[in-house]
């Protein structure tokens, strides 16, 4: 494998989630996190999963990642059942989950080291390529604690992109950042997505964030987690989170969200 191939985007994968249910047993009984959830995601599509906490959207992400298995139903990526985690489906978390014992480039190289057939120099070069993509090449030998929150998430993005995945799973990756940093990262993410064109599943509870990033916004309702509505976002990119068009969609979705929560409140 050459460095060229390593940094050239592969074809994005399509995902199919078919009648998936998942429950967890806690001290207080059984919690139905997902019930009969079906969702199809096209190749290279950017789908945002939106909903209040406890609606199972993170659980769905874990299932697609292969970190957990569904009780019933199936998850397939490109027609193949997901049975365990794999480098073609990379995940980003709300906390950066970067390893403090490695420096920045060491973190980006972690997954590359697990990829067979790559020489040390090639790994290094690929890692630099991705750090450059997120604009942090200058910080490759920095310690993790020296980076700001936004920089950490950029490194986490570089780390997730480094094994050249075909699906990117993002679990509220910007939720812990301040508004300014977040807006910068929206821009970066859209730019990188256009460039790499991976399939993205993006979990959030921020309506405007979902509208300004997604091709499609999937609304989840809680107890048990179900998909209750979908919105197609027909807006040109790059989108500005403060634009009127985004606000228009956001108002509609917020209304649907409120309606859903009221109905939920009426029948606890």
């Amino acid at each position, binding site marked *: 494998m050459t460095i060229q191939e390593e940094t050239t985007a592969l074809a994005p994968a399509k995902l199919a989630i078919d009648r998936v249910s998942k429950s967890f047993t806690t001290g207080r009984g059984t919690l139905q996190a997902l019930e009969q959830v079906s969702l199809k995601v096209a190749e290279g599509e950017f789908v945002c999963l939106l909903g209040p906490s406890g609606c199972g959207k993170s659980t769905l992400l874990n299932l697609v990642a292969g*970190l957990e298995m569904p009780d019933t139903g199936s998850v397939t990526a490109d027609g193949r059942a997901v049975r365990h985690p794999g480098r073609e489906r990379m995940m980003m*978390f709300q906390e950066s989950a970067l390893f403090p014992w490695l420096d920045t480039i060491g973190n980006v190289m972690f997954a590359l080291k697990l990829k067979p057939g790559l020489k040390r120099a090639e790994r290094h070069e690929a890692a630099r390529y991705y750090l450059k993509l997120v604009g942090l090449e200058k910080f490759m030998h920095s310690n993790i604690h020296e980076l700001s929150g936004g920089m950490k998430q950029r490194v986490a993005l570089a780390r997730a992109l480094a094994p050249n995945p075909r699906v990117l799973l993002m679990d509220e990756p910007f939720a812990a950042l301040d508004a300014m940093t977040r807006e910068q990262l929206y821009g970066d993410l859209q730019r990188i997505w256009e460039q790499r064109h991976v399939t993205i599943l993006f979990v959030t509870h921020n309506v405007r964030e979902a509208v300004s990033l997604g091709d499609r916004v999937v609304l989840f309702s809680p107890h048990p987690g179900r998909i209750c509505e979908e919105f197609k976002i027909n807006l040109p990119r790059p989108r500005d989170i403060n634009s009127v068009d985004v606000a228009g969609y956001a108002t509609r979705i917020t209304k649907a969200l409120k309606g859903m929560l009221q109905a939920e409140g009426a029948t606890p």
Partner: protein
Amino acid sequence: MKRYLTIFCFFALLITAWQWAYAQKFWSPVLVPSPESVGRYLWEAALDGSLAEATLVTLKRLLAGYFIGICVGLPVGLLTARFRFLQDTLGLLALGLQGLPSVCWVPLALLWFGQTEAAMLFVVVMGTVWSVVLATETGVRNVNPLYVRAARTMGSRWLHIWLYVIMPASLPFIVSGMKQGWAFAWRSLMAAEIFVTILTGFGLGHLLHYGRELHAMEQVIGIMFVLVLLGLLADKLLFSPWEKWLHHRWGTNKA
């Protein structure tokens, strides 16, 4: 530079005060010898080689026991952290025995092994191993589960996760456990050497003991001085570099 000056001044002052107290003859010179006589003892012991030999014997015992203790303690700690059954059995045993002052192993070691090197080694190993077990276990339990999840999505599996995620993530705990293990090993070895006379080697503890028997206070104080120095040296050489690296990398303790 200023820090070194402070350190120098402090110890110079300490010795001056000692010299002054000696000169005032508050106490019998048998009980409080002059700094000079202690210095002379150390000089002579260094010249005739007895000091170097005793230091070598002691350090050899210490390092051998400490090394064995870590080799046993580290994997046992990993296992007790991984398996609930082992945590409830071996882990509890480790917790109990770690609380036992390591001197308490000396009588048992004497009865089991007699006045031999094996007894010495046993005492040092017992001093080291439980601290290392407990620190490793705590370290592993404190690893952020998110690290493991992130590593799994990147294709890391069993052994790879243990070696490249869980072990390095628990390193701060493991290093402090190793440091504590060293302190316990050191204490228990001194206790053993003071209590037990064996013919295969005269350690620093023995010199201390015979200093007392001969009423040679300058020897007692001189050896204590060497022990303190060795302790400091071990800290600076063995642990300081690790701790500095950890602080630097993890961003703990900016000092």
